[in-house]
């Protein structure tokens, strides 16, 4: 309650008591990142065999930081997120190994009930399609208020007031009049705002946004992304932004992890990756962005298709599509090498899972 009042006072004021408070809560030290995913493996049992959707993914997010996870459909970016949230479709899905440390504790070892209490309260998720992700038969006020009723034991009346407050906060006009409306009565952008409001309701430490703007008009995309970034700053949350849209990433992310076939193939601070990608796959992704100065030319596309997760190619999973593949690529899985300058200077936060990363970045 106290925290609520304080954070309301400095709304719009930028930095902040709430930031200081949340630092105080985590013990003041920024040594332990908010979330650390360590060698996470997820597989799905299917009729044709075991599909290895995530094969040893590691990344970390600190409070106030934004990590963008980039990749094609089926690269395992959403599955990783679902495993972190504990909402994997299980069966057939199952975490086969690794750790997910949240505030330093491995949440994969927690009981179901402990994890349930984390969900929505300490970590929340925003989904792609707000229309199907909101329950069609309950009013938005009801669905927003449910967070407070279930996690905070609030009364119907109080939770409704909270819902209106939240709708105001995500800038939905006439919140008071619309709190009783149903999801289908809102526009796409407004619905996604409601999804955001629902995720932020209890001021979680971590937000996972799974392609939050993919289903929206381009004009609305920017508004929703700005709102999300603004609220993240205000509440000093860690944000994992899952996307395949390189344009969205550039504006809001601090660092990027590129995924392919269930592995991270490249990590880098956001601006460096555009300038100097160190993995042929990232290069391919960047080259496939339509550009105005290439009007009239054929658009570049990475050849081939992402691999079948039931039969991931031996060696580097990208090798069958890679223009630079050598023999070693087809036999040996490349580790995520730290990337350095030619003279050996470290490039903090950079890594590449390519045998020939040196040629890629310096060549």
């Amino acid at each position, binding site marked *: 309650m106290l925290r609520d009042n304080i954070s309301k006072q400095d709304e719009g004021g930028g930095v902040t008591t709430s930031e200081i408070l949340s630092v105080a809560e985590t013990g003041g030290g920024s040594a332990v990142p908010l979330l650390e995913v360590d060698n996470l493996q997820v597989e799905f049992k299917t009729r044709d065999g075991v599909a290895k959707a995530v094969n040893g993914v590691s990344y970390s997010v600190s409070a106030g930081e934004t990590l963008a996870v980039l990749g094609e459909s089926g690269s395992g970016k959403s599955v990783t997120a679902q495993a972190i949230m504990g909402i994997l479709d299980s069966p057939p899905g199952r975490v086969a190994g690794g750790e997910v440390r949240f505030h330093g504790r491995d949440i994969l070892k927690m009981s179901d009930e402990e994890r349930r209490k984390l969900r929505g309260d300490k970590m929340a998720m925003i*989904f792609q399609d707000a229309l199907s*992700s909101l*329950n069609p038969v309950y009013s938005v006020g009801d669905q927003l208020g449910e967070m407070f009723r279930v*996690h905070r034991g609030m009364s119907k009346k109080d939770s409704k007031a909270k819902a209106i407050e939240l709708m105001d906060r995500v800038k939905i006009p006439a919140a008071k009049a619309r709190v009783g409306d149903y999801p289908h009565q809102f526009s796409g952008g407004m619905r996604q705002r409601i999804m955001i409001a629902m995720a932020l309701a209890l001021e979680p430490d971590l937000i996972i946004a799974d392609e939050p703007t993919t289903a929206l008009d381009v004009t609305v995309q920017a508004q929703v992304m700005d709102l999300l970034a603004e609220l993240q700053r205000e509440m000093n949350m860690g944000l994992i932004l899952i996307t395949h849209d390189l344009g969205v990433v550039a504006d809001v992310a601090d660092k990027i992890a590129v995924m392919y076939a269930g592995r991270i193939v490249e990590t880098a601070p956001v601006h460096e990756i555009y300038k100097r990608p160190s993995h042929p796959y990232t290069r391919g992704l960047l080259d496939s962005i339509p550009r105005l100065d290439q009007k009239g030319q054929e658009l570049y596309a990475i050849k081939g298709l992402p691999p079948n997760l039931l039969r991931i190619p031996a060696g580097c999973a990208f090798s069958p599509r890679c223009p630079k593949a050598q023999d070693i690529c087809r036999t040996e899985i490349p580790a995520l090498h730290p990337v350095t300058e030619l003279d050996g200077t470290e490039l903090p936060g950079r890594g590449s899972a390519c045998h020939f990363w040196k040629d890629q970045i310096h060549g």
Partner: protein
Amino acid sequence: MGRYVIRRLLQMIPVFIGSTFLIFFMVYALGDPVAALFGDKAPDPATAARIRKDLYLDQPLWKQYLHYMGAIFQGDFGTAFNGQSVTELMAGAFPVTLRLTLVAIFFEIVIGITLGVISGLRRGRTVDTSVLVLTLVVISVPTFVTGYLLQYLFGVKWGWVRPTVSPDAPLNELILPGIVLALVSLAYVTRLSRTSIAENVKADYVRTATAKGLPRSRVVTRHLLRNSLIPVVTFIGTDIGALMGGAIVTERIFNIHGVGYQLYQGILRNNSPTVVGFVTILVIVFLLANLLVDLLYAVLDPRIRYA
């Protein structure tokens, strides 16, 4: 909403007229009611002619129909062959059948939906497969088989219940007949809710509810069930009408003096006033049940609005 209800009620008029005329026509085709009245004896031609005249039977069919409809709207459904007025028979029969129907619907809802939810949530596992096989068996076996079988087992062999129902048809005696009457629909309700649950359990809003940190029980009952039951409610609603008219076999087996029993007697004895009267009321029940279902639909699903 009000306008919609009025429109629907108005739409019922042509349906009502059409269906009653059809029944009237078909019963007329059954044969000569005056001959039936006299049973095996040949009627005295003069008396027969007089009765025909009294009952408008000497007039064309459409005129007979008009006379009949005119009388109905004055609350006169005619007189059965035994001298009882048809309204009297109805007053005795409909409450009994209504009670039987309610017992059946109760089992449909409680057992059908419970089994459906359980098997839907455990799709592909042993529980689910067994329920599917069981419902298939129930659907394939006709009511007169299950009826006699259960009556023999529970009523005669083990003596747990009275094999036949006493004339007052108290609720406790209607439990077994209610289950027999419900069985086939129950199997359909089970399958329908199973499919619906299995489909919706993968829905995005269920995933959202889980991601919100709601307890599993709340996710299932409040989010999953509410959406999954919309088609089931539709089925049960229309089934009310079907059960009330379709209890003929069950009522025969358990000797329940309800609508089905009276209809059976009426058809057997060519007792046209009884048949036409009862079926007319059933038509109305059916129409109203359908309207209720449609209205309930809008209550359950806010995306549906009637104007």
